[in-house]
C-alpha cells in the first residue's frame, strides 16, 4: 500500500500569489494513496527539507510529491532530502506549479485548479515509481579541446597544469587562432603576438598537452567520463618528425598564387606553407589544391630542396581514436559574409575592408609590412571612415540580431593607432551606440575622441560608392546635427559582425550539444552554468558560446578548465538510473530497438525464457545500463512494449495522461 506525502511550496508569493496553496493541500489530501499533505513557505530551504524528512519518518511515506518550481531547479535538492530521510531518491516527483502554472496564469481560480491537476498527475506517477539505484561509470583522465585559439590554448594549459592530459585538435596547420591575426589588443595596446606566442610555446612544450593540428574531429561516441573520439589527421605531406622548420621549401615553391587565408586573402602564399612565422608546430603543410606536383605530377621542388627529407607526397589522412573524460569546445568565430550588404561596396572596392583585414594591414608581419595603404593603389589613405554594426544588431535576414560586442573597442583601438601612426589622417566613426562596459574600456574610447581627435558621428552610413576621382564616396547621416553627410574617403573599414565558426554545427551535432538559432552553443544555465553545455561532459570556451573579447575569453577558458578538472578528478561517475530495460518475456528479438539506439547500448543474447509454463530459448534484447542515456527511442520502436524506460515507464506516463485527462 502506497503512502504518499505531498508538499506544496509557496515560494514566497511566487506560487502563493496565483495559486491557493491551502486549497491545493486540501484537494490532494483526497487523492487515493495520499496520507499526508502540507504547505510551506520555501520547501527548498533547510526548514522545508526538514519537514520532508520528518514526514517521511513519522508518516512512513513510500513516495513524495513536491509541488514547487521546475524539477530542473530543485529535483536534485529534493531527491537528496529524501535520501537523507531514508527514502530512495527516485521516489520523489515534482509538480511544476511555478514556471508552468503560477508564473503564467493570473487568475487565482485558474491557477489553483491547474496546480491541483498537475499535483494529481505527479501523484499518479509517483504511485508507480520504483526505487532506482544509480550505476557507476569510469572517468577517462584525459580531456579534448576542440580549437587551438586563445580559448583552447588557455583551457588546455589550465587543465594540463592541474595534472591531466589534454589533446588539442585544431583544423588549421597551426594553433593560435584569431588572436594570432591581431596586431594590438585593447585596452592596453600590447602586441597580440607578444602575449600569445609565449602561450603557444608553452602549450607546445607542455608534457601533458598533445597537439593535433591540421586535424578534425570526425566522430564522437560515448558519454560524460567516457567519450571515444575519432580524429582525422589530415595528410600534411610533410613529416612532422623530420622537418626542421627551415622554411626553404616555402621560399622555393613555384606555386604562389593561392590567397593567403591568414592574411584574409590580402596577399598570396605558396602551396607549401605555414600560416605565419611563429606557427606552432612550425611544420608546413602542402595545399594539394594548389600544389603543382599534386595537380600535374611534375614539380617536386620542395622535396628536392628539403635537406631533412621531410616531404612525403604519399602521406594519407589518418584516423586515430582517443578516449576522453571531458570535451571542451573552443571553436571560435569568423566574420560574416558581406555579400548581402551591397551598399557598403565591399565586394566592389579593394578600399573597403573589414576590421580584421585592417588588423593584418597594421601588423608589421602583415602583407604590407604594417603600412596601412589603399589596396587599390598603394597610397596612404588620408581620410578613413569606420562603420559600426555592419550586420550586427540586424534582425533582417542579412545580419545577426545580436551585438558582436568587440567592435566598439577594436574600432577605438584601430582609430587611435591610425592617428598615432599617421597623424595626418582624418578618422571618422559612424556609430549607433558606443558600448564600452569593461574595465578601463570607456576611458579608452574617450581617449580616442579626446586625445586623438577621432571624429565619432552618431549615425549610420547608407551607401558607399565610388567618387569620380577614384576615391570612395560615403553617404551617411549625422543624427545629432540632423544633416546628411556626403564625404570622400580613402579607406572604409567595416566593423563586420562576428558569427560562430561554420563547423560548430557539425561538431555540436556530433557532441549532441545544443545550439541556438545563431549557432552559438547553448550553456547549461545562462547565469549559473555559463561554461557547461547541457550535455554532460561538454564544456564551452570562448566565442563559440557567445561574442566576447580576449580577457573574457581567457576568463571563460579558465572556468571551463576548472570544470573539466573537477570532472576528471572524480574516480567514478554516478550514472543515471533512468535507463531502458527489456522484459525478456515480451521481447521478440526483432532488433528494432537496437537500430534506433544512439549509444549502441542494446545487444542481443539467447536466453532461456519461462513463459506460461513453457521453457524456450529466445533471442532477447539486453540493455547496457552504463551506455544507455535514457532517451526512450527504443521503447517506441518496440511494438510489444517489452522495452520500457525506468523513471519514465509506459505505465507512469499513461498514469499521468489519465490523471490530467480525468
Amino acid at each position: 500500500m502506497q503512502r504518499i506525502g505531498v508538499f506544496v511550496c509557496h515560494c514566497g508569493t511566487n506560487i502563493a500569489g496565483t495559486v491557493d496553496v491551502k486549497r491545493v493541500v486540501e484537494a490532494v489530501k483526497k487523492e487515493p494513496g495520499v496520507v499526508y499533505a502540507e504547505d510551506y513557505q520555501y520547501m527548498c530551504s533547510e526548514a522545508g527539507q526538514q519537514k520532508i524528512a520528518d514526514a517521511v519518518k513519522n508518516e512512513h511515506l513510500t513516495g513524495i510529491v513536491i509541488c514547487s518550481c521546475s524539477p530542473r531547479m530543485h529535483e536534485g535538492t529534493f531527491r537528496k532530502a529524501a535520501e537523507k530521510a531514508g527514502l530512495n531518491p527516485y521516489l520523489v516527483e515534482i509538480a511544476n506549479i511555478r514556471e508552468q502554472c503560477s508564473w503564467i496564469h493570473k487568475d487565482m481560480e485558474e491557477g489553483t485548479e491547474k496546480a491541483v491537476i498537475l499535483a494529481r498527475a505527479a501523484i499518479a506517477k509517483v504511485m508507480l515509481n520504483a526505487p532506482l539505484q544509480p550505476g557507476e561509470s569510469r572517468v577517462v583522465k584525459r580531456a579534448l579541446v576542440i580549437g587551438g585559439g586563445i580559448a583552447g590554448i588557455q583551457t588546455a594549459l589550465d587543465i594540463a597544469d592541474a595534472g591531466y592530459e589534454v589533446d588539442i585538435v585544431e583544423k588549421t596547420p597551426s594553433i593560435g587562432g584569431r588572436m594570432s591575426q591581431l596586431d594590438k589588443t585593447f585596452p592596453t595596446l600590447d602586441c597580440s603576438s607578444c602575449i600569445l606566442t609565449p602561450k603557444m610555446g608553452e602549450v607546445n612544450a607542455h608534457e601533458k598537452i598533445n597537439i593535433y593540428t591540421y586535424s578534425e574531429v570526425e566522430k564522437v561516441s560515448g558519454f560524460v567520463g567516457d567519450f571515444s573520439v575519432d580524429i582525422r589527421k589530415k595528410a600534411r605531406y610533410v613529416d612532422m618528425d623530420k622537418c626542421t622548420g627551415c622554411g626553404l621549401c616555402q621560399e622555393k615553391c613555384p606555386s604562389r598564387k593561392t590567397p593567403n587565408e591568414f592574411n584574409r586573402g590580402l596577399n598570396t602564399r605558396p602551396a607549401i606553407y605555414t600560416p605565419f612565422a611563429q606557427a606552432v608546430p612550425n611544420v608546413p603543410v602542402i595545399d594539394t589544391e594548389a600544389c603543382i606536383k599534386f595537380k600535374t605530377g611534375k614539380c617536386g621542388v620542395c622535396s628536392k630542396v628539403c635537406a631533412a627529407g621531410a616531404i612525403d607526397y604519399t602521406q594519407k589522412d589518418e584516423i586515430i581514436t582517443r578516449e576522453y573524460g571531458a570535451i571542451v569546445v573552443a571553436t571560435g568565430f569568423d566574420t560574416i559574409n558581406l555579400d548581402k550588404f551591397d551598399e557598403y561596396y565591399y565586394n566592389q572596392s579593394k578600399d573597403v575592408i573589414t576590421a580584421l583585414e585592417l588588423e593584418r594591414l597594421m601588423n608589421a608581419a602583415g602583407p604590407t609590412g604594417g603600412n596601412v595603404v589603399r589596396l587599390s593603389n598603394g597610397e596612404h589613405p588620408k581620410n578613413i571612415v569606420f562603420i559600426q554594426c555592419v550586420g550586427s544588431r540586424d534582425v533582417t535576414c542579412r545580419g545577426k540580431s545580436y551585438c558582436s560586442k568587440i567592435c566598439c573597442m577594436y574600432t577605438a583601438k584601430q582609430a587611435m593607432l591610425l592617428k598615432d601612426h599617421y597623424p595626418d589622417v582624418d578618422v571618422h566613426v559612424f556609430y549607433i551606440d558606443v558600448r564600452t562596459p569593461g574595465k578601463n574600456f570607456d576611458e579608452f574610447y574617450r581617449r580616442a575622441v579626446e586625445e586623438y581627435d577621432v571624429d565619432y558621428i552618431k549615425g549610420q552610413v547608407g551607401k558607399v560608392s565610388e567618387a569620380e576621382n577614384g576615391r570612395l564616396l560615403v553617404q551617411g547621416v549625422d543624427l545629432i546635427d540632423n544633416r546628411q553627410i556626403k564625404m570622400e574617403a580613402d579607406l572604409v573599414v567595416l566593423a563586420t559582425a562576428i558569427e560562430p565558426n561554420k563547423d560548430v554545427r557539425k561538431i555540436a551535432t556530433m557532441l549532441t550539444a545544443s545550439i541556438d538559432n545563431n549557432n552559438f552553443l547553448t550553456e547549461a544555465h545562462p547565469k549559473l552554468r555559463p561554461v557547461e553545455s547541457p550535455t554532460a561532459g561538454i564544456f564551452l570556451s570562448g566565442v563559440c558560446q557567445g561574442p566576447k573579447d580576449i580577457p573574457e575569453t581567457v576568463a571563460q577558458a579558465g572556468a571551463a578548465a576548472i570544470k573539466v578538472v573537477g570532472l576528471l578528478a572524480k574516480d567514478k561517475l554516478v550514472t543515471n538510473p533512468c535507463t531502458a530495460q527489456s522484459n525478456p518475456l515480451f521481447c521478440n528479438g526483432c532488433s528494432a530497438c537496437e537500430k534506433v539506439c544512439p549509444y549502441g547500448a542494446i545487444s542481443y543474447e539467447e536466453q532461456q525464457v519461462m513463459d506460461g509454463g513453457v521453457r524456450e530459448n529466445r533471442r532477447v534484447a539486453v540493455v547496457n545500463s552504463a551506455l544507455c542515456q535514457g532517451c526512450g527511442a527504443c521503447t517506441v520502436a518496440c511494438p510489444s512494449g517489452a522495452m520500457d524506460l525506468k523513471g519514465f515507464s509506459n505505465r507512469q506516463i499513461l498514469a499521468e495522461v489519465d490523471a490530467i485527462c480525468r
Partner: protein
Amino acid sequence: MSIEAKNENKEFKPLIVAFCCNWCSYAGADLAGSSRLAYPADVKIIRVPCSCRVNPLFILRAFQKGADGVILCGCHPGDCHYSTGNYYARRRMTLLFSMLDYLGVENGRTRVEWVSAAEGVKFSQTMNEFVEKIYSLGENVRLEDLRCKKN
C-alpha cells in the same frame, strides 16, 4: 434538465496535453514561465526525456480520456540531447498524424513543434496558437471514448 442539455450549456473548455522533452522544450516552457509569457491554463505539460519517448499509444490514450488536443514539443532537429531522438519522433508523428487525418480526425488536433530551451517566447506563442486552434475545432468527438465522458 437532461444530460445533453447540460452539456450544451457548458462552455467549451479544451483539455490539451503537451508532451515536452526534458532538455529543450520543457526548459523552454520553464523559460516562458520565468519570462511570465502567459498561455492558457488548458495546457498541461507532461515531461518526457525526449520527444522519441512519446508512444502513439500515449497520444491516443489522451484522446480517449478526453483530451481535445495533443502537442508534442522537442528539441530542434539536429539539436536533440540524444542526438537522433527527435528525428525518429518526427517520422513517427508524421505518419501517425497522417493516419489520424486519413481516418477523418481533424488534423489540427495534433501538432509537433520544435522548441529550444531558449525559445520561451516560441513556447508561449505555440501554446496560444494551439489552444486557439482547438477552440476553433471544438470538442473532440471523433476520437473519444464515451465511457470516459464526465456527466
